[in-house]
């Protein structure tokens, strides 16, 4: 099956060492595993049969960015057929969303925006945030936003509830919004938002209740009954791994092994991610 991975944090050795070292990685992501070289990320994509991966920046200013927008753009430039870059801005400190976005999209060639309200510590439903979404909609730039579980007690989990995205989706109906992790454990809230709004997608990245196969099987055939996934959500689910919190081949294998119709798995892995990227 053809695969596009919409959720990759390029926390590779070359980026982490340059971008503030392990201490910043730990502070922002609470991730304490040693970063791997870029070469092994590319090998993971090969091993998993992933054609393209979306690399996500994360602007946590004033603490720093990991990676920064320029870093993501540079990785994309080195591997243009393999990587797509999503930049990041922090709505807390954003003065001129239009100008900042122009710089990311026109200047750096980035194709979307990643936000994590918990780690970036901003209210995703504030008017400041809305001004960013308005510009994203105007420019036709997709938004991937963290929703759901955040293991670190340092971060505000209240910012990760998916239901509030319903009002954003209705206010900006042409803005493509991906709710990461399908909002787990508030999955039905995320499902409701996706079902009501044509412009909302759910990514299935990471695993929260066991191995990728255990979690995705539970998520997409039990918690959400198989018939609901197949009949209602097949156009709404998109693949993401959440590398390096999970290895990419394990996530792809888990989706391919699901007890779902083949056409649904193909949609999750490839056709729906294309829609998010505006390439359908």
């Amino acid at each position, binding site marked *: 099956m053809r695969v596009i991975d919409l959720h990759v944090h390029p926390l590779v050795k070359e980026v982490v060492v340059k971008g503030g070292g392990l201490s910043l990685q730990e502070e922002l992501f609470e*991730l*304490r595993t040693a970063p791997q070289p870029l*070469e*092994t990320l590319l090998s993971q994509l090969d*091993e998993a049969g992933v054609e393209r991966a979306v690399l996500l920046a994360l602007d946590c200013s004033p603490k720093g960015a990991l990676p920064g927008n320029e870093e993501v753009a540079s990785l994309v430039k080195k591997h243009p057929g393999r990587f797509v870059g999503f930049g990041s801005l922090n709505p807390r400190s954003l003065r001129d969303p239009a100008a900042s976005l122009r710089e990311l999209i026109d200047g750096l060639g980035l194709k979307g925006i990643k936000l994590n309200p918990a780690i970036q510590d901003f209210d995703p439903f504030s008017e400041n945030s809305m001004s960013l979404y308005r510009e994203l909609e105007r420019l036709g730039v997709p938004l991937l936003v963290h929703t759901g579980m955040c293991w*670190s007690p340092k971060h505000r989990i209240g910012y990760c509830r998916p239901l509030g995205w319903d009002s954003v989706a209705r206010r900006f109906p042409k803005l493509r919004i991906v709710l990461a992790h399908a909002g787990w454990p508030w999955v039905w809230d995320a499902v409701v938002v996706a079902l009501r709004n044509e412009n909302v997608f759910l990514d299935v990245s990471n695993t*929260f209740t066991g*191995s990728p196969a255990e979690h995705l099987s539970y998520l997409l055939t039990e918690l959400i009954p198989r018939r609901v996934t197949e009949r209602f959500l097949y156009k709404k689910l998109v693949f993401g791994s959440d590398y390096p919190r*999970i290895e990419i081949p394990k996530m792809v294998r888990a989706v391919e092994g699901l007890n779902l119709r083949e056409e649904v798995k193909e949609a999750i892995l490839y056709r729906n991610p294309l829609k998010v990227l505006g390439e359908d």
Partner: protein
Amino acid sequence: MKTRFREVKVVTKRERELVNITKEVKEFVKASGVREGLVLVFSKHTTTGVFINENEEGLEKDVVNYLNDIVKDEGDYYHHHYFYKDGRMAVNAWAHLRSILVGLSVAIPLRGGELQLGSRENIYLAEFDGPKERTVILAVMGE
């Protein structure tokens, strides 16, 4: 008695594969100048293995397939939970179990500066949860 130590980085390409590291070990022994003694090959990763066997392409596949068969990927593994120490899910019990079966080190006697390997014996690093950059320790002691 002389001792020498080297860390060798091995970047694996596949999730599960065998990497023949005999050449690296021989080069290390030669550079050490130790002629009579023992060389230890040790992996620093609990999802890898180190072993000696014949370097035959079919057998290399058989080893990987056999270990896949006897330790199943999916199972009711206690290990598969959130690992606060790492800040991520642990989802590779099967890789650890395969590592335990294979072992993490081999020791090879040296005589006249040569590894006393049989004509078909080669030294392998087994990757069970790649692709990753791995560190293998080579340590030699002797005269």
